[in-house]
């Protein structure tokens, strides 16, 4: 209950922040621009032509749901990585602000446990990112549905997957903020883990770039522990394109990612429990 109260407080604070509102407004403007600029000519369920701001994109005449799959897949990628970027930028200073002198003392003197503060902040930020990504995904889906009559679950699925992928990213940001109360360091840690996670997701391909030896071993060792964020990011486009998904593989990816997030959160809680304010 307390965790939820802290999370809802964070969402109220986010709702009142100009920075967060500006990011959502920017996303809305992009969708509106897309809605105004993109035209499809659908004849009897087939896509006859596609125009972006009046320019013909040179598409073949195909069934519209098949023809638009690459577009939905690309949209899913945009929602996934856009959601993660939105998360890092919009939420970097939540934890440092929460831990700021004069505020944290008042919170710790309330009947709230330290872990509840951290868990509440984490849940609040996850809900914010889920909301932001879902808003973008749903808006694009709605625009494409209105233009073509086709509904594709890819962009919305991408929002849910982005929320899972953001869990370790924000856990790293939170743990960093507990260690050193700085929004810049917190965002830096999140971006570093995001990049590491993108590399780790493609480690099977990238490892070929390393000569056998210590370098390759080090690369494999480092990327072995990182969450496979780019592999996770490929799930939603697969849904968008109607490709079959190995449920076990997807579940393992999500579970590993969430386990990594829980481990980082535990580290943050441990540091917070020992910290004086």
């Amino acid at each position, binding site marked *: 209950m307390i965790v939820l*109260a802290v999370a809802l407080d964070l969402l109220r604070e986010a709702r009142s922040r100009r920075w967060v509102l500006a990011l959502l407004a920017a996303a809305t403007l992009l969708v509106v621009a897309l809605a105004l600029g993109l035209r499809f000519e659908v004849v009897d369920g087939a896509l006859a032509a596609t125009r972006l701001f009046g320019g013909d994109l040179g598409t073949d005449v195909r069934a519209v749901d098949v023809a638009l799959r690459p577009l939905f897949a690309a949209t899913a990628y945009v929602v996934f990585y856009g959601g993660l970027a939105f998360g890092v930028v919009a939420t970097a200073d939540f934890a440092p602000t929460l831990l700021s002198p004069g505020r944290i003392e008042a919170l710790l003197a*309330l009947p709230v446990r330290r872990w509840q503060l951290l868990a509440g902040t984490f849940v609040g930020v996850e809900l914010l990112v889920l909301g932001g990504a879902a808003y973008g995904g749903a808006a694009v889906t709605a625009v494409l549905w209105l233009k073509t009559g086709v509904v594709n679950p890819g962009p919305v699925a991408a929002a849910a997957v982005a929320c899972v992928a953001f869990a370790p990213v924000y856990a790293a940001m939170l743990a960093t903020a507990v260690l050193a109360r700085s929004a810049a360091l917190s965002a830096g840690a999140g971006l570093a883990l995001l990049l590491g996670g993108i590399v780790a997701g493609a480690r099977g391909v990238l490892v070929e770039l390393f000569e056998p030896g210590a370098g390759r071993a080090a690369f494999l060792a480092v990327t072995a522990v990182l969450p496979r964020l780019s592999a996770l990011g490929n799930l939603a486009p697969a849904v968008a394109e109607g490709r079959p998904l190995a449920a076990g593989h997807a579940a393992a990816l999500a579970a590993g990612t969430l386990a990594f997030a829980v481990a980082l959160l535990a580290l943050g809680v441990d540091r917070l429990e020992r910290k004086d304010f």
Partner: protein
Amino acid sequence: MLAIDARGLAKTYPGGLGRAPHEALRGVDLAVEAGTAFGLIGPNGAGKTTFVKSILGVVRPSGGTARLLGGDPADPRVRARVGYLPERLQFPPALSAHDVLRSVARLKGLGRAGPEIPRRLEEVGLAGAAGRRVGAYSKGMRQRLGLACALLGAPDLLVLDEPTDGLDPLARVEVRGLLAREVARGATVFLNSHLLAETERVCTRVGILVDGRVVREGRLGELREGTSRWRVRFEPGAPEAALGAAGFLPGDAPGRFAFEGEPGALNAALDRARAAGALVVELSRDAKDLEQVLADAVEASA
């Protein structure tokens, strides 16, 4: 019953990167009776704020124990009965005073707190600004809001760190009245302030913290009167030479004298003065103000 019971409370901040460890509290023993107003005073860096934070669990003590309202401060049920106003309080700037109080009410387990929120805002003089963003508040308004947060839920113990900081003189009078009402209700008020006049007006007991130790503690009257200096006023025309011989020191106005000594010596000196023809018209103990008490305590502990 004790509202605050600290025994041997110690806090050493670890050093690092060439800094030596800092002993902020060196075994503080302090007991505050429930239903009283207690003031903790001391010079800057004496450890007052560290003491307050230690008893609330905001700072982890290095040694000793602290109990609040008979329970462990780490227990949320105990902290639910405590209202705390920290020094340099910060609020989320985008929220309104009403939002802040609703958030505190939820975290205190008071639900929506219903009519209490407008009542508290009225009490601290913020009813007219309840809907404004806290970021646009002046320092004094933020302080008032912090006080309203501390008062929410009618806590049994109020721990206030510099509560009148940033307030204008009229607001200070209002806060004093508010704290007096809280004590009359049965709450304990623990005041940590460097404004000695405030402490003197609000508190009945005072502790003096110097260099991490409580060097004096007791009823305000006892601390102020813990002196053997007396003020005596004689009728005009009293023989000054005879008074000087009896041990009276000339004061700051004609007819006014001071005497240093225990009551027995004072009576003997008065007998000699009267025998010389002097008439006593006023006699009082030369009570020190709190500033002097603090200065003496700091000097004695040096």
